[in-house]
């Protein structure tokens, strides 16, 4: 399935909904969109992986790149994911210790608003 990217705002948060397959071919588009959002002023970013069918190391590399970029401007990045196949990938790579991962968008925005974001 092709990559789909949809952006919306919830309060102070910018939510990027990602769908389809994030791999070595499509990750460039995800990187470009994240850079565009951050350069455009987004500082409280939530990436919703709820409709992602496949995520590989290239996709993880792009998310880490966005996190690093946000850190330089005092921004935060939270992920939304409740799919076991994807959560396993974050556990194997220990990236579950790097990203705040929440089961729902509401949980992600609430946690970030209370100051426990990345």
């Amino acid at each position: 399935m092709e990559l789909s990217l949809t952006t919306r705002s919830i309060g102070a948060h910018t939510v990027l909904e990602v769908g389809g397959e994030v791999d070595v071919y499509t990750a460039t588009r995800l990187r470009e969109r994240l850079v565009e959002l951050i350069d455009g002023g987004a500082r409280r970013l939530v990436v919703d992986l709820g409709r992602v069918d496949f995520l590989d190391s290239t996709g993880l590399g792009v998310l880490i790149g966005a996190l690093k970029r946000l850190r330089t401007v005092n921004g935060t990045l939270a992920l939304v994911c409740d799919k076991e196949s994807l959560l396993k990938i974050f556990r194997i790579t220990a990236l579950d210790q790097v990203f705040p991962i929440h089961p729902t968008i509401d949980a992600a925005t609430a946690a970030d608003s209370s100051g426990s974001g990345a």
Partner: protein
Amino acid sequence: MAKVTLSFTPAPVHVRTARLVGVAVARRAGVAEELLDEVRLAVGEACARAVALHRQYGLADLVRVEMSDGPAYTVRVIDRAPAEAGPDLTGLPPDKLANEALTDEAVTVGVGLTLLAGVVDDLQVRPVDEGGGTEVRMAWPVKRWPV
């Protein structure tokens, strides 16, 4: 023992095709349904690594994927890049992965190897005997078809 071989131009767009074929042949070979996500991820990671190496060294050679069933389902992904290529970032701690000093590409290489090692119990990475390059060999158990 049945074999399926796939060769593809080292371009990212073809990695998805390799993943799809890898999973289709695994299913046909009798790999358990709950392992197919791991097969998909591992074949994708191994092929993405090969493509990245070919592009890094400007090699137009095809990436070769050999799938065979038998006592186990075995996938070999063969590249033609110099064998010493790539830093060994396996098991890099997460605080280092998010370190400013590493490029996105270096992070991806490290994460890719960690993922491969994490999802494939039977994994070997070794130099190719003839012609140079590296072979990533992965194997998964198969359920025998009822006789």
